[in-house]
């Protein structure tokens, strides 16, 4: 294999794959990236066996071929190269030489034969998906994904498609984010489709959505989800766990409704939570007529209290929430007014924007 490639383009693809390369050293070849010179392009593939990424850059191919090299090292080398043009060629025993100007690196590669193959993608199954919509689905749910590795069934994003509706749901067992959008722009789905996407893969997709304009192509099978945007293809193996029945935990009888200015509540919560005890920030919410008193205390430090005007006319209610959970949702809400719907101090609360039911956030209280 022999080729020359322009530094900037090469660096971009190398950077994009870094997040996927396996960091834990379970299989040495997974810390490598596969580079393949063919047809006037340099293709590059990386995987941790759960997420696969394929990208490509134009290159001047002098001799076709392929090799795998340590992705991290290759990126660091290319980044520091002095000239705009980089030459790569393979030598004996899987050695790879990278040259630019007078700099010359020789690193050991591993044969591309041993690298896991990129899953087969059926181009015909790829359908267009609104970029901004996918971004919103991810951004409004990603903070609630469980990071508890032992609970693999909630360790990801539940993506549902039913007719023209598309939904994304995440939970960590204490709170749940639900968003439902109409995707009439996209081809309607015949049946109901429900898949569980792992966190890492979705975060990689999210990066890709930011990088480039234009809609992406998506295909969902029983085992994988594939996203394609220009030359970049990300394929994610679906999680196998059974996501809990989220419909059951979305309350329908939370009659006490409080409307509050979102920004005011957000900044007040940030202030008050400074003094809440421990690493888990519990804040007390005291609702009474047109008034909300937020308070927190720590036996070792002191206490904080703040009064806010809210739109509420029901009975007094006192309830405690983890401030972090509340702040997370308020930060992604675009609307001016946040609606809080409560039942009693031990039942889940709902937070919604204005009157819309598209975005629903459920948060379980803390015992007072």
């Amino acid at each position, binding site marked *: 294999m022999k080729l020359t490639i322009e530094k900037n383009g090469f660096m971009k693809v190398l950077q994009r794959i870094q997040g996927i390369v396996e960091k834990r050293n379970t299989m040495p070849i997974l810390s490598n990236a596969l580079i393949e010179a063919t047809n006037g392009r340099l293709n590059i593939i990386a995987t941790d066996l759960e997420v696969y990424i394929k990208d490509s850059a134009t290159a001047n191919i002098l001799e076709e071929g392929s090799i795998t090299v340590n992705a991290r090292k290759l990126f660091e080398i290319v980044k520091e190269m002095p000239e705009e043009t980089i030459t790569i060629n393979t030598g004996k025993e899987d050695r790879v030489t990278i040259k630019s100007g007078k700099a010359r690196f020789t690193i050991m590669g591993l044969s591309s034969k041993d690298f896991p193959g990129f899953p087969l993608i059926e181009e015909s199954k790829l359908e267009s998906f609104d970029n901004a919509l996918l971004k919103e689905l991810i951004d409004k749910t990603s903070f609630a994904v*469980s*990071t*508890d*590795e*032992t609970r693999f069934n909630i360790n990801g994003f539940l993506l549902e498609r039913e007719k023209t509706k598309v939904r994304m749901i995440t*939970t*960590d*067992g*204490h*709170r*749940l984010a639900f968003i439902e959008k109409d995707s009439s722009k996209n081809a309607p789905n015949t049946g109901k489709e429900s898949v569980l996407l792992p966190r890492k893969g979705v975060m990689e997709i999210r990066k890709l959505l930011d990088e480039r304009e234009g809609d992406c192509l998506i295909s969902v099978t029983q085992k994988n989800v594939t996203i394609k945007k220009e030359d970049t293809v990300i394929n994610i193996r679906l999680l196998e766990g059974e996501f*809990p029945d989220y419909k*059951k*935990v979305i309350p329908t009888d939370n009659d006490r409704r409080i409307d509050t200015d979102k920004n005011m509540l957000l900044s007040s919560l940030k202030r008050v939570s400074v003094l809440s*005890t*421990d*690493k*888990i920030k*519990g804040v007390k919410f005291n609702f009474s007529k047109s008034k909300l008193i937020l308070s927190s205390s720590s036996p070792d430090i002191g206490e904080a209290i703040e009064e806010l005007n809210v739109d509420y006319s029901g009975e007094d209610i006192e309830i405690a929430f*983890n401030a972090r959970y509340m702040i997370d949702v308020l930060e992604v809400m675009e609307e001016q007014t946040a609606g809080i719907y409560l039942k009693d101090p*031990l039942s*889940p609360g709902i937070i919604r924007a204005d009157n819309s039911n598209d975005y629903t956030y*459920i948060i*379980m*209280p*803390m*015992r007072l």
Partner: protein
Amino acid sequence: MMPPLPYRTIMHVDMNAFFASVEQRCNPQLRGKPVAVIGSSGRTVVTTASYEARACGVKTGMNKYEALRLCKDLIFVVGDNRKYMDASLRALEILKGFSPLVEAYSIDEAFVDITGANEPVEMAVRAKRLIKEDLGLLCSVGIAPNKLLAKLASDMQKPDGLVVIKDADVPSVLEDLPVNELCGIGGKLNGRLAALGIRTCGELGRFSASVLRERFGIIGERLKFMGMGDDDSPVVPMGEEANAKSVGHSMTLPADVSSLSVIERHILKLSEMVGVRARRFGLKGRKISLTIRYPDFFTFTRHRTLSFYTNDTHAVYAIAKDILAAIRLKSAVRLIGVTLFDLAKDPRQLALFGLDVKKAALLNAMDALNKEFGDASVTWAALMEDEGKGKPSATFRRQSCILKNRRLCRKVALGLWRPTGARNVNVK
């Protein structure tokens, strides 16, 4: 500089050959004979030797065969922690008669703050007499202006000693005392100090504080004070210890084990003990560590940080097992320890899903039953299987159905298997 210390009088009480003495007291036939206590029947390391055995040269840490070579009449007794705990608590009760400030330093040592006592020596004599009369045990007592020196004093005369170090005596006592005689300076530190040319406490006390700080970090300065015999640490009475920083259990296995499934089973048992304790204290932790000791006493610890707080037995077990999976064991395993740390008070956060609620309720129910009927009255089915055999027997399965939740009760059964062997139970 350390502020001038208020004048204090501290008494350190060290029970002599504690485990062996308790055994001799319980079994008159052992009295006056060389006795060595070992961890369990499958174990060979001597944990304590009676003074009769020590006279022949038998020491703690020796193995059975070495000990037998030195003393052919040596009688081995398998240790019984409950007996020792009971004796220890009784001794503490006696000491509390002298001062409310009694710190249980270990199972066989205690500090008593007797500042203001008119006749500290007379007090010590009475304490020794009471312990001997009530418990039939001997102890060495050290009296000094602080804990460091009190401990040093009690070490000076064994058994049945009583040594007083007065303020004025401190320089002469410490001048030629090897540094490793001080509590807190062990082999490694001793070696590093020796490399600086420091062999005695006198030398340590005169050494440059800045060099010590540079070499040893924050403890550098403290080392210098130790060399001068200064120690301002208070006697912390029981129940007033600082908040727990970790909850851990470790266990020397009855015999060295190399089977992964058996090791995992011990890890499950330890995880359960850790979980029970954390739940009892209302604590959750975010870091879990696994400690392994090989038969050659090489010991290491690996930990994993979680992004959430837990005290769920199953979560602790899953993580500890995961840590084990990442270790390439070089030999059989002698000791296993599981610790939960980076603790926070259980925030009383409620769970959203019914299954989680049930799971928490199940753990609470298990804890309550075990509290009522004794440890491991209800335990995990995996702890009941015979080594190498598959499923729990039909009886167990039937019993396990007492618990309604099908998905969970598969893992829980009324059971008996519990690991034996010396256990180190610590809440630090």
